[in-house]
C-alpha cells in the first residue's frame, strides 16, 4: 500500500525546570492510506504530542515528518494552517463544533474555507451527515445535539474536505458506551467507504478493539506496533 506519512527519527523535547523532557523520543513510523490506527499509551507517554506534530500544531525538535512528499518542518506558520485546512481532518475530545453554526454549516465550514462551490459543499455535507446518521438534524445547532451526535458531526466535518488523513485525539473520551460503539462503527464504515485514513490517540479499549493497527507508546517511544488481519 501507499505510504501517506513517513516519520523518521522524530524527537520532541521540552525543558521543564531546567530538565529536558523527551515527550517524543526517536520515533520511526509509516502510516499507509486507508489505515485505521490507534495510538495508545498511558498519560504522558507522548501520543498527543505525536498527534500534534503530525497535525502541524506543534514544532519538531528533530527528525522529519513527511506527508505526501512534504516535509512539515519546512513549512511556515501560515503554510501549516493551509496544510491543515487542505490535508488534515481533526476530531477533538470535546467535539469543538462552532456553536453559532448548524450541523450542516459546521460540516460545510472547512470546504467553505477551501473555496468549494456552495452547491457541491451542501451536497457533500448532507451526504456525510446522512452517513453519520444525522440527516434529520442538519439544521440543529450543537447545543441542541447530544455529545454523541456532536462527535458524529465532528467526524463528518473532519471528512468533509476529503483530507489525506484524520487525526482524532481521544474522540470517545466524553461518550457513553452506546455512543462510542455507534461512533466507531460510523468511522469504520467511512474508513472503508471513503478510504479515509484515521489516526487516533486513545485510552479506550473499545477503540483499540476496533482499530486495524495498534501502536503502543511509552516514554515517547514505540514499544509495540500490531497490525490486525
Amino acid at each position, binding site marked *: 500500500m501507499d505510504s501517506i506519512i513517513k516519520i523518521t527519527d522524530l524527537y520532541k523535547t521540552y525543558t521543564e525546570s531546567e530538565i529536558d523532557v523527551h515527550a517524543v523520543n526517536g520515533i520511526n513510523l509509516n502510516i499507509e492510506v486507508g489505515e485505521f490506527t490507534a495510538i495508545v499509551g498511558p498519560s504522558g507517554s507522548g501520543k498527543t504530542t505525536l498527534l*500534534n506534530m503530525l*497535525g502541524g*500544531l*506543534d514544532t519538531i525538535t528533530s527528525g522529519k515528518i513527511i506527508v505526501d512528499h512534504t516535509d512539515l518542518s519546512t513549512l511556515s*506558520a*501560515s503554510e501549516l*494552517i*493551509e496544510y*491543515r*485546512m*487542505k490535508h488534515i481532518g*481533526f476530531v*477533538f475530545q*470535546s467535539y*469543538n463544533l*462552532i*456553536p*453559532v*453554526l448548524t450541523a450542516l*454549516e459546521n460540516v*460545510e*465550514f*472547512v470546504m*467553505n*474555507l477551501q473555496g468549494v462551490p456552495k452547491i457541491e459543499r451542501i451536497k457533500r455535507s448532507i451526504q456525510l451527515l446522512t452517513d453519520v446518521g444525522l440527516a434529520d438534524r442538519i439544521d440543529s445547532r450543537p447545543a441542541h445535539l447530544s455529545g454523541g451526535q456532536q462527535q458524529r458531526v465532528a467526524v463528518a*466535518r473532519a471528512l468533509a474536505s476529503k483530507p489525506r488523513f484524520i487525526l482524532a485525539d481521544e474522540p470517545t473520551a466524553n461518550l457513553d458506551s452506546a455512543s462510542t460503539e455507534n461512533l466507531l462503527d460510523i468511522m469504520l464504515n467511512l474508513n472503508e467507504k471513503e478510504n479515509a485514513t484515521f489516526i487516533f490517540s486513545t485510552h479506550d479499549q473499545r477503540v483499540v478493539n476496533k482499530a486495524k493497527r495498534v501502536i503502543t507508546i511509552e516514554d515517547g517511544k514505540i514499544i509495540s506496533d500490531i497490525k490486525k488481519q
Partner: protein
Amino acid sequence: MILKMAWKNIWRKKLRSSVVITSIVVGLVGGILYMGIMNGMMYQRIGSAIATEVSHIQIHNEKFLENEELKFSITNSTNIINKLEKNKAIRSVCSRIITTGMASTARTGSGVEIIGINPNKEKAVSNLYTKLIDSTSSYFNTKARLPILIGERLAKKLNAKRKSKIILTFQSASGELTGGAFKVVGIFRTQNSSFDEMKVFVRKADIAKLVDIPTETSHEIAIMLKNDELLKQEKENLKKEFKELTVSPWQETMPELGMMEESMNYMLYILMIIILLAIAFGIVNTMLMVVFERTKELGMLMCIGLSRKKVFSMILLETMFLSITGGIIGLTISVLLVNWLSVDGIDLSIVSEGLQVWGYDTIIYPDVEVSYYINTGLLVVALAILAAIYPARKAIKLKPVEAVRIDN
C-alpha cells in the same frame, strides 16, 4: 461564512452585547443632543444679534469704534446709503446717530448709549419694533415731542413706565452739556438683558437737533443682506468700495460671537471624540472578554485551517457589528429627537435670568447639521476599527495547540 459567524457571535451573549450597544447609543444621543443644544443656542444668539443688535454689516468712521465721539461721523452718509440701496445683495440699509449719555428719572440715573434712528428705515433693518412688551407701547407712532424707547431692564432700574419722563443728558457737538426731557413711548425686551439695560432709541432728527449736528450725519450705517451666505463676499466688496471707512461684519462687531461660531464645531467634535474614546475602552474590554472566553474555539478554528487573517477579520467584524448597530440606533434616535425638539424647543426658563444676561433665548431649538451626523457615523466606524485591533491581535497570537486544550 465569516461575516455570518461574526454577526451570530455578537448575539451569543445578548445581555453583554446589549449593554455595549446601549452605551454607544447613550453616548451618541447625549453627545449629539448636547451638540444640538449648543449649536441651537449659538445660532439663535447669532440670529437675534443680527436681527436686533448688529445687523449683518456695520459701517463706521474709522476712528469711531476706538472713541465714540460725535465728531467721528460718516459725513457723506446720504451718498453712501444711496449707493448701498442699489446693491442687489443688500436687503435694507439704515443710518444712526450714536452718542453716550445719562438717562435719569426722579429716582435714579444710569449710563446709556443713545441711538438716533429713522423709525421707518430702522424697521427694515432691525426687528426691535417686534420686541415691545406692553400692548400700549408704540414704535414712535406718537405725537409726543421727544419720544424714547427703553429696555425693560433699564425701565426697572429707573422705575420708569410708559409715558414716564426721562431726562437724557449728553454732550453736544461743541462739547457743551445738553439734554432733553424724553417721554417713554415703548418698552422693549430682547434676549439680551445687557442690551436692554444699555441702549435707548430716539428719533434721529430729535437727537441731531439736540447735539447740534446735521440730520444727514451718521455714526453708523447698518446693513441687512438678502441672506447670510452673501456676507463673506459682500464684506470684501464693501471694504474695497469704502476704503476710508471701517466695514465690520457682525463677527467683528461682536467678536465673542464670531469666535464662538468659529470654535464651536471644533469643540463639539472634540467632545464627541472624548465620548467615543470612553466608549471605545468599554468595547475593547468586552472584546477582550470575548477572546478570552472563546480561546478554545479560536484555537479549534485555527487548528482546522482558519487563517490568522480571517481570525483577525472575524474579531474586527464582531466589533464593527456591535459598534455600527449602536451607531445606527444612536444616530436614528438622535435624528428623531433633535428633529422633534427643533420644532417644540427645550424650555430652559428655569435658568432664564442667567441665559438672558448673555443674550440667549430661554427656549432652545437644537440644531444639528447633516454633516455632523455623517462625521459622527464615520467616527463610530473608526472607533470600532481602533477598538478591535488589540483584542484581534490577542486572538491571532494564540497558539492553536495550547488554545484548543483550554477549558472555558
